[in-house]
């Protein structure tokens, strides 16, 4: 791949500001099962699938292993107490440049859930490794995951098993690479003029 950063003449202050900066430590705490029906539910039905749970600024996050994600999603939707019937957002984060241990996987697929019954929010995360970037689709639980998962597939290159229509959505069909991965350079797009490719 061309070294786009050099080619575009971008300075370290633009791209490496993150590395040279001092970083503030974490301030989150563990989520307690007493005030979180979601954690109780997942713990009861899917023991051993929970990786971690956090409470940060009043926002609940539960990280799980990816293999039972559809069942967990379904349980969270159908349970009377949690009733997360609205998939507010589905996205992904590439943890390549975050300080983490070797064992921690590179990707986290993030489900921002909302309940139209209790008006509560929950962030459900599923860990996806770099070697096996696949996860089951939650289309059967929340149909609007369709486009959101296509976007994650397009931007991060994560394949969703059993997805009904897994194609690129925002980038052109013949695009190479996944733009929102952290090893994909900023400004990596070649400027296209009509006749700048030989033989075209």
């Amino acid at each position: 791949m061309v070294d786009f950063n050099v080619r575009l003449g971008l300075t370290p202050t633009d791209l490496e500001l993150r590395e040279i900066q001092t970083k503030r430590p974490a301030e989150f705490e563990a989520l307690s099962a007493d005030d979180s029906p979601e954690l109780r539910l997942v713990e009861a039905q899917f023991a051993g699938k929970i990786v971690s749970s956090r409470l940060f600024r009043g926002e609940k996050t539960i990280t799980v292993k990816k293999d039972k994600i559809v069942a967990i999603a379904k349980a969270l939707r159908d349970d009377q107490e949690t009733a997360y019937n609205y998939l507010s957002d589905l996205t992904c984060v590439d943890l390549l440049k975050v300080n983490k241990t070797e064992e921690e996987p590179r990707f986290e697929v993030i489900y921002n859930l909302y309940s139209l019954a209790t008006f509560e929010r929950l962030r459900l995360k599923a860990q996806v490794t770099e070697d096996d970037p696949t996860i089951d689709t939650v289309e059967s639980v929340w149909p609007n995951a369709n486009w959101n998962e296509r976007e994650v597939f397009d931007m991060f290159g994560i394949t969703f098993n059993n997805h009904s229509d897994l194609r690129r959505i925002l980038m052109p069909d013949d695009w190479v690479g996944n733009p929102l991965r952290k090893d994909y350079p900023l400004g990596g797009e070649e400027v296209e003029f009509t006749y700048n490719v030989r033989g075209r």
Partner: protein
Amino acid sequence: MATTERDLKERAIEAKLGAGVDVQRIQDEDRDLMIVNMGPQHPSTHGVLRLVVELDGENVQKATPHIGYLHTGLEKTMESMTYYKALTITDREDYLSNLMNNLAYSLAVEKLLDVEVPPRARRLRLILNELERIASHLLWLGTHALDIGAMTLFFYTWRERDAILDMKEMLSGVRMMTSWICPGGLRGDVPEGWFHKVGKFVDIFPKKLDEYNRLISKNPIFVERLSNIGIIKAEDAIAWGMSGPSLRGSGVAWDLRKSNPYTGYDEFEFDIAVGQNGDVYDRFLVRMEELKQSHRILVQALRDVPGGPVMTSDRKVAPPPRAELDTSMESLIHHFKLFTEGYHPPIGETYAAVESGRGEKGYYIYSDGSGIPYRVKIKGPSFNNLQALPKMVEGLMIADVVAVIGSIDIVLGDIDR
């Protein structure tokens, strides 16, 4: 060569959709379908939406939206800027509700930083947001009517929308991309005479609203045209992730201003407008009622605007006043640090959402402890609303598709980001 009936039909469709339409026909034993490519440069698609519709005669069998023509990688861009600079990107994303995007982003960053916003800033944010909602709905009203063929209204709504843009200009010098709401408060206080201008607008607005209603809402042709098309049931609308007026048109009374109040919406009285049938006319009525309710909020909010500063006094977030720089070394350091490195939220992640003109507009921010957001995800309401479009238009006539697109009020900048 004689002109067949089918040729005439095809010509009629072409004439209807205007220039830039590709038509292709699939003809075999059991079907005779015509594939029509609507957009991406079609005026009724509100930007660069491309819709491939399969037609049997004039009936839509299937509609497939193709998006991404306006994709500019805003999320990637934001992930390379400091938090303060990334604010300017939010304006450019859903370009009809700039201040609401600013607010959603600011709320997410403020949650990360754990800063309090002074009461005056909170109230001004609310006033600006409601003005923006009115401006956004007015643009929708004008263009929706224009799509259907009622041209006059467009000029009326544009006149009022312009008055709101004038207010934004008076406030910031910019008519659209103001970035005026920023993490910590507002960039500056309102200039002298601004409240007078807003007050004058609020006084005349009910009269103008009556004018629109007289012109169009009860017009039998208009009502007939919009009723019973583009129907989506409440449970389908929820399943497809619709939000905002498009969801409320189906009878789901969910408004983030009521359910998860932010920036002081819980202090005011207003009602959530809901429809019954979930058709295009219901969504139209919901937005018309929202204009009225926004006015009602504005009247209450303008009554007693609290005094005081409009920016938090936390020097780790807000730059110190210019005068302090000459006398205080501390201030100079803060000023320098803020504009080179920016502020440093702790490691963590937040999601904040506001009710924009189109629905739930949210920002998800993942912080790795540095001055640059590690990951920003923009949740655009139009993205999910558009996803439900095929469900609404299948089985309708081709001419109704235009009305349905207008009724979900999409902004392509919000979809493609």
